[in-house]
């Protein structure tokens, strides 16, 4: 037990050192930029995992909050001359939170398929707004003409500076999300996903907890959106399109729902694969689709789920004790068990 948690700490430490070292390893700038995108999409994918994996809400509107965060940066900088990073971040998170509070009130009137359809429609509405409200959003052309700003010690005009900013944001968001899913609140979310009737009978306002999860997840998505806008120094309606929503869902499912680390892995796979494949063929989306189908067929709980399952099988062979394999239920495997 202790040796396993030490092993986990060691793995995290090594990964962290590697992540910090990347810009200094003399890799082509291209890879540093792909990893920067991975960290940004990773935050977005983890925020969606809080809903899909932990709360059991398959939301198709996460791109809307990502886009709202990005547009707050662009519109703030170009129309209202907001250039302070922290103020922009706070405004973006608040605007996304308020939007989520309104959208959540609508979407949570339904469950399951109804919820999916409403969130999909709401995402399309936000997209339509960005696409058609040309005087505000620049329409299809999007918004350019704003620049990265330096944040504390990070010289973001430099690509490695932006890399470190994104990595720091990722670590903060991951830490907060891990704390959240390991907290009493996180246990309630899992309970509401598994047995909403039982949770209501115990005195939990299931609706309220889902609603809070929706708003919190939107705020994390907005953080990713802010970084995305600065990274590209451009925002267009593509950032909050249905394409983005679906891609983020694929990241979550590919990596493994309810694991947080899985969606980060999924984000990396999608970012790297889409870049590598789009060099080779224009039909790269087809290949991505095939990867997705194979995952769903052979590893329905994603890559991290598959790893956990194999590890658990190896472990139970070693220990042969049912009780022992049931014990650890950490954030990286909140279901606590190998199979579903």
């Amino acid at each position: 037990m202790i040796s396993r948690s030490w092993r986990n700490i060691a793995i995290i430490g090594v990964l962290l050192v590697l992540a910090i070292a990347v810009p200094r390893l003399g890799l082509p700038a291209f890879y540093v930029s792909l990893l920067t995108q991975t960290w940004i999409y990773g935050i977005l994918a983890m925020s969606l995992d809080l809903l899909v994996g932990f709360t059991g809400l398959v939301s198709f509107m996460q791109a809307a909050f990502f886009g709202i965060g990005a547009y707050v940066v662009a519109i703030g900088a170009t129309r209202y001359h907001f250039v302070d990073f922290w103020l922009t971040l706070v405004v973006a998170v608040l605007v996304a939170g308020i939007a989520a509070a309104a959208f959540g009130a609508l979407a949570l009137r339904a469950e399951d398929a109804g919820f999916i359809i409403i969130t999909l429609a709401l995402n399309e509405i936000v997209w339509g707004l960005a696409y058609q409200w040309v005087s505000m959003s620049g329409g299809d052309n999007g918004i350019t003409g704003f620049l990265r700003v330096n944040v504390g010690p990070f010289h973001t005009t430099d690509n490695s500076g932006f890399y470190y900013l994104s990595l720091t944001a990722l670590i903060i968001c991951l830490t907060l999300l891990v704390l959240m899913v390991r907290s009493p609140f996180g246990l309630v979310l899992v309970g509401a996903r598994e047995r909403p009737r039982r949770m209501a009978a115990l005195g939990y306002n299931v609706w309220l907890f889902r609603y809070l999860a929706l708003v919190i997840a939107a705020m994390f998505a907005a953080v990713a959106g802010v970084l995305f806008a600065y990274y590209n120094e451009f925002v267009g309606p593509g950032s909050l399109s249905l394409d983005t929503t679906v891609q983020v869902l694929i990241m979550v499912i590919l990596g493994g729902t309810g694991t947080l680390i899985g969606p980060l892995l999924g984000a990396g796979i999608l970012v790297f694969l889409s870049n590598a494949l789009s060099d080779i063929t224009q039909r790269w989306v087809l290949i991505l689709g095939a990867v997705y189908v194979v995952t769903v067929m052979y590893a329905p709980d994603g890559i991290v789920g598959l790893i956990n399952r194999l590890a658990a099988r190896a472990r139970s062979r070693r220990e042969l004790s049912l009780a022992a394999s049931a014990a650890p239920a950490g954030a990286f495997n909140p279901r606590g068990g190998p199979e579903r």
Partner: protein
Amino acid sequence: MTVAALHDPDSTGETCLQLTGISKRFGNLHVLDDVALSVRHGERRGIIGPNGAGKTTLFNVIAGELAPTSGKVHLYGREITRLPPHSRARLGLARTFQTTTLLPGLTVVENLVLSLQALTPTRFQCFVPRTRYRAFREEALRLLGQVQLDHCADWLVRALGHGEQRQVEILMALAQRPKLLLLDEPTAGLSAADAVLVTDMLRAYHRDVAMVLIEHDLSVVFNVVERITVLHYGRVVAEESVEGIHDNPVVQEIYLGGKL
């Protein structure tokens, strides 16, 4: 506890649960028709009746999952007819479900902690690990010790047997120290030995909590309760003490078929 103490429910005579004129219609189907029911503080009440008599519907009306078409529900004098289930739970109403409804992927302790933290502000705490809340775990272990299940505290619920799962479910309901516990067929689907475990657990429980149970197995009903209400086609057709129910002609005709 002596048998006499068991069968002497209350000294105050305070009314715990009061149903007046409860009707529930689904379209033209009258599932419940003008049901009146009064359960005293600490009473043990059984509700029996043939399939389709409306027992589970009645439970769902009491627990708040269904709104009655007409009529009122009071809990200790307070009207709760329109309150949602979670608000009723906060007023001291607990229940179990017909098929055991636990969180199978969580551990036994985690299931109990969910029940213990439900009525505290801790449930909204999002940045402190659950392991910091030792008091919940200790209380959960104490409760499990009462039914000799503390050795499997950290097992996943799905690793428990049916009888043990049902015990955990009842413990979850009792952990909140409710004033009224609704038990929907607590021994359904259990082996005879497991059923005894559960009925013993219910019989031994102290008298601060009123229990209302639906049950098909009459031996369970007669073992646990002191009064029985008989539902038939959504109407209350008899209400008798356990001793009197054997001789009630209406009951013998419609439900027991004279087999007692």
